[in-house]
């Protein structure tokens, strides 16, 4: 198979676009999935509790 410039440009323009859309969708679903909300809130608060050393 010979890959010429136009093929690559075409692939860049189409696959790139779908990749972008799919990725955005995946991230949005992950972020707004109801069950994840609790975990995110917990993580955001967790760094504020100070401890003097690692957990054992």
């Amino acid at each position, binding site marked *: 198979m010979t*890959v*010429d*410039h136009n093929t*690559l*440009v075409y*692939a*860049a323009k189409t*696959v*790139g676009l779908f*990749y972008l859309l799919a*990725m955005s969708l995946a991230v949005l679903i*992950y972020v707004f*999935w109801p*069950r*994840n909300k609790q*975990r995110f809130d917990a993580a955001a608060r967790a760094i504020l509790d100070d401890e003097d050393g690692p957990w054992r």
Partner: protein
Amino acid sequence: MFGLHYKLERKAITLVLAIIGVASIGGIVEIAPLFTIDQTVEEAPDMRLLTPLELTGRNIYIREGCNACHSQMIRTLRDEVERYGPYSRAAESQYDHPMLWGSKRTGPDLARVGGKYSDAWHAAHLANPRDLVPQSVMPAYPWLGRRQARIDDLGRHLRALQALGVPYTEAMIEHAEADAYGQAAPNSERGWGVAERYGEAANVRDFDGQPGAPTEMDALIAYLQMLGRQTAIAEAAGDAP
């Protein structure tokens, strides 16, 4: 299903793979097609290679960081074409490892500076720019004229470039040191070979006005006088931006 996602995320390595996947795509998409670009770029059949002395000059240009203040890329804009000459073509830097397009013009563009000024002007200007241009903020390079250019390992330089695809011939590699000497010593026997191997357009003359082995000044001026004169494709196109 998202319980699975949760488990995956616990493993830091998944995050690593996701980052690589997401981040690499842009670079691959932009850069990969450029390696087939020779299929679309105009050709420059008259393209002349850098002589060993000019290559030495180019390496001095890099060593001194000239590219921090001088670009070598004329954009396709009317004022740039009028100020500096026909806009730069991709083919013109096809053998530049690395390219020196630059990103800042504290000083003017040099893409087509070759032949614009005399050798003596360059020698005086490099020694102290303010002797010729009082407002200049360019550093003075008085030591260039005092230091011998290192030419004994030039064969190795050409060999490396040949390995990267620059079409230096075996004869060019073999005579690299002699050609470097000869280019700045026009009346010596070694001077003849330069035109033979690099074409009549190659400048063979005593650039810094000092006889003997080439100095760093010779090399740098030889390089500057060559800039924009490797091929005539840009002039031939009779430019309109």
